[in-house]
C-alpha cells in the first residue's frame, strides 16, 4: 500500500499531519503516539520575538466546537530553533514551521532564520484571527497574500505552504493569489471567526471580543473551502478543519486534499491523528485502493 504523498518537493510518508497550534512542538504528544508515525508536524505559530499571547480565558466550548484566543503565545523563532527543533529532529517525520509576522519584513526574517536543516517546510499563517497586528488582515487581502508569498518564497529554500482563512467571500481568489505568489501548496482552513457573550456579565467571553472557531462544527465549511480552492489552483492542497475521524479525513482527500491536518481532535483524543491514519488504511484495503494518491480529488460530481 502506498501512503506517500508529495507537497511540492516535500515527500510525506503519509497524508496525516497535525495542525499548527494544537500540537505544540510535539513534546507532549510524544507520550501518546510515536511521532515517527505522522506524515508531519505543523508546529505552533512562530513569531520573530517571543509572544505572551492574550489574557485568559483563551478557550470556550461551543456546540461541537471551540473558540480559542491564544494570540500566538510562543517562545519566538530563535528559542524554537534552539530548544524545540532538536527534539523534533529526533523523529523521522517532517517539520513544518508555521510562521506569523506582523509585517512582510517579519515574514521574510522568519523565513530566513528557518533556512536551516531540520526544517522541512514553512506554513505562512496569514490568517490568525487572534492578534492585532498582521494576522487576518493580511489573509483577507489577496494582494497581501500574493506579496507575502512571493517574498517568503524568494527568501526561503523550503517548501512554502500558504495557510488561508475561510473568512472571505471567495476562497478561490486567495488560493490563486497564493499560487501566483509562488506557493508550493496551500493549506486551509484556519479558524472561522466567532464570538461568545457571558449573559450574566454581558461581556464578551474573550478580551479580544472575537475568537477562532474550530472543531467538528466547522467541518462542512472547511470541506467546501477545500473543494473550491482545489478547483482554483493546480498546487497541492492540505485540508483541515474539524477532522475527527478517518471518514472526515477521507472526505477532505476525496474533495481534493493531498494531505490533511488534525487539529482540535488532538485535544479530544491525543492519539487521534494515528487512529485516523489507521482508519484511512482500512478504508483503502476495503476499497482496494493501493495508492493513497488515487483518493485525492477523486470526487464524482
Amino acid at each position, binding site marked *: 500500500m502506498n501512503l506517500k504523498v508529495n507537497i511540492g518537493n516535500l515527500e510525506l510518508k503519509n497524508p496525516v499531519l497535525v495542525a499548527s497550534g494544537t500540537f505544540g512542538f510535539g513534546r507532549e504528544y510524544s507520550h501518546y503516539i510515536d511521532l515517527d508515525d505522522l506524515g508531519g508536524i505543523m508546529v*505552533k505559530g512562530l513569531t520573530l520575538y517571543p509572544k505572551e499571547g492574550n489574557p485568559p480565558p483563551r478557550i470556550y466550548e461551543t456546540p461541537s466546537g471551540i473558540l480559542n484566543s491564544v494570540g500566538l503565545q510562543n517562545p519566538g523563532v530563535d528559542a524554537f530553533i534552539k530548544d524545540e527543533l532538536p527534539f523534533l529532529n529526533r523523529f523521522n517525520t517532517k517539520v513544518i514551521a508555521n510562521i506569523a509576522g506582523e509585517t512582510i519584513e517579519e515574514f521574510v526574517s522568519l523565513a530566513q532564520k528557518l533556512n536551516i536543516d531540520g526544517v522541512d517546510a514553512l506554513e505562512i499563517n496569514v490568517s490568525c484571527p487572534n492578534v492585532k497586528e498582521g494576522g487576518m488582515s493580511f489573509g483577507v487581502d489577496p494582494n497581501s497574500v500574493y506579496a507575502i508569498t512571493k517574498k517568503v518564497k524568494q527568501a526561503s529554500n523550503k517548501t512554502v505552504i500558504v495557510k488561508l482563512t475561510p473568512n472571505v467571500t471567495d476562497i478561490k481568489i486567495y488560493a490563486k493569489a497564493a499560487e501566483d505568489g509562488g506557493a508550493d501548496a496551500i493549506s486551509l482552513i484556519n479558524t472561522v471567526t466567532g464570538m461568545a457573550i457571558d449573559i450574566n456579565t454581558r461581556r464578551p467571553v474573550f478580551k479580544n471580543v472575537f475568537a477562532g472557531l474550530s472543531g467538528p462544527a466547522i467541518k462542512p465549511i472547511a470541506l467546501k473551502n477545500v473543494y473550491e480552492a482545489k478547483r482554483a489552483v493546480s498546487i497541492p492542497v492540505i485540508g483541515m478543519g474539524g477532522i475527527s475521524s478517518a471518514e472526515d479525513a477521507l472526505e477532505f482527500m476525496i474533495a481534493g486534499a493531498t494531505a490533511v491536518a488534525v487539529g482540535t481532535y488532538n485535544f*479530544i483524543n491525543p492519539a487521534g491523528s494515528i487512529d485516523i491514519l489507521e482508519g484511512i488504511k482500512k478504508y483503502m484495503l476495503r476499497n482496494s485502493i493501493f495508492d493513497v494518491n488515487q483518493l485525492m480529488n477523486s470526487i464524482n460530481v
Partner: protein
Amino acid sequence: MRYVVRENREISNGIYRLRLEFDGIPTPGQFIMINCGGNTLLKRPFSICDHDADEITIVYRIKGKGTYNLSKVKALDTLEVTGPHGHGFDMFDKFNNILIVGGGIGIPPLLFLSKKLKSKNLKIALGFKSDVFLVDEFKKYGDVVIATEDGNTGIKGYVTDAMKDEIKDIDMIYGCGPMQMLKSVKDMAEKYDVPCQISIEEHMGCGIGACMVCACKTKTDSGFQYKKVCKDGPVFWSREVVF
C-alpha cells in the same frame, strides 16, 4: 484509556464522588481529564481526591452539561480518561506545621494531599457555602476547622476568617478553592511570610501542555509570563501568581 467506574454517588447536595479503576500513579494536586459524553466536546479536568492501589476517587460538583452527564454514569460503565496530568503540590521534609486551606469544590485534592502528608502536624481549614462534605475524611489526618457562609456548620463566614487564628507557627500553606479565596490566602501568606502553594483553575483544551489555552499569569523578573495551568500547574507558588 477506558476505565471502569466502581461507584458514582451523591455525597452532598449536588456533589458526587466517583471511584474509578485507574492504573496511573498520581501525586496530590494532579488531575485527570474525563470525556463526560453527551454532547460535550472537550474533556473535563478533575483533581484526584484519593488514590489507592488500582483506583482513584474524584469528587465533583454539577456545574454544566459535562458534570451533569457525569452524574448519570453508573458502576460498571466505562469512561475515557487521560492523566494523571500536571504538576501537583510539592511536599517538603523540612516543613512540619502545615496549614491546608480549601474552599468549596477546591477541597477534594487537599484530601489526597492530607493523606500523603499525614505524618505532619496538619491544620485544615475548610470553607463551604452551606452543606459540608469530606469533613470526616479530613479529620483522619489533622485538626479541622470549618466555616460556612450561612453558619450551617462551624464558623459563620469565609474560610479565610477561620484561617487567621491558625497561621502562627505555620511552615507551609497549601490552598485550593475559588479565586477570591486563593487571593486572600496568597495575601495572608505574604503578610506572615509563609511559603504557600495554591492550585489554580483555568479552562483547558489539550490538558497536556500543547495548546497554550490554560494561561496563568505569573511574575517574572522582567515582568510577567503566562504559564500553563495544565502542565506548569495546576499548583503554583502563590508568590508567582498574578491575580
